[in-house]
């Protein structure tokens, strides 16, 4: 099965990057889940958690504020001016 190449980036560093099977983020419209094969998307994030289910079955959680989410060709980038891993 295809996997997502995810990177979580804040203004001054790359917080996490790796392969994932699922990503859940909170946009201004509500929570959104991204699975492999998602159509290209550009969304504004509301302040809240970004949960990534990694390929080896773990969950990485980050708090992101003032950012956005872009999905393209199974590459997911979470960009936030301030973000930290929990």
């Amino acid at each position, binding site marked *: 099965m295809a996997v997502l190449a995810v*990177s979580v*980036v*804040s*203004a*001054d*560093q*790359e917080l996490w990057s790796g392969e994932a099977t699922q990503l859940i983020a909170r*946009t*201004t*419209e509500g929570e*959104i889940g991204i699975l492999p094969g998602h*159509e*290209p*998307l*550009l*969304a*504004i994030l509301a302040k809240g958690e970004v949960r990534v289910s990694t390929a080896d079955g773990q969950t990485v959680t980050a708090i992101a504020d*003032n*950012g*956005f989410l*872009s999905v*393209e*060709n199974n590459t997911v*980038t979470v*960009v936030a*001016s301030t973000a930290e891993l929990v």
Partner: protein
Amino acid sequence: MGAQLRVYRQKISSAKTTKKITRAMELISASRIQKAKQRVAASGPYSRAVTRAVSAVATFSNVDHVLTTEPEKVERAAVVIFSSDRGLAGAFNSNVLREAGELAARLEGEGKEVVYYLVGRKAAGYFAFRKRDAEQIWTGGTDSPEFEIAKEIGDAVVSKFLQPASEGGVDEIHIVYNRLVSMLLQVPEVVRLLPLEIVEGVEAPDEKDVLPLYEFEPEVDKVLDALLPVYIESRIFNAMLQSAAAKHAATQKAMKSASDNADKLINDYTRLANNARQSEITQQISEIVGGADALSSAK
């Protein structure tokens, strides 16, 4: 001690004191540049991601938005100049100011009014001395830039950009900063931030490729509105970090050559001092010999 010799000794000791200072500054810069370079590298992913997203929108959608469309007539252009707070960095500040001057001359030649935004005490001083007006000035903290400052600068220029030209708004935003090419080379760079000019990190789509149809959440306009300040902030923050790293490299280079010059001066003056001392001794000997001769012949 002869007068000449004393002058040389004074010069040697003054060159030694200067050398101590320049050597210390060289070492400080050398240790700080590593940190500065790491920060540039660390901010890379963010600005790459933002730039990718912006250019994806610009390339793959045909939305009418200030971000992606060229204004028909440009009345005013904003120029943001990134200098440093301190000198002693060789041609670092004069390079960036000269580059900004050329840019301004070119823009004015095209009939645009230039509005300046200055970062760093050196640019502020340059403008104050020439009694030129700047729209806004930020000083302090250029050695280790904070994201907050980048945000402030970004907010200031973006709000000007969104104002209509008739109310004093600007239609273009340019930035001028020193980019660190290598430890020995810093190049002043001029980049037009808005309207979007350079699309970095995204390959131009082939004619045959089917462009991905982006979905936007909430709406295209809102996403672009939110993306615009983020993009500007990230570019400005990146320019500040680059400029800080380049400043450290320039200081290190300038201080190294200053220390080398001090070494050379110390060498030269030591030679001259030795000469003076030797000729003083020779003179004394010949005086004594002359005196002894005179005494013995007087008997």
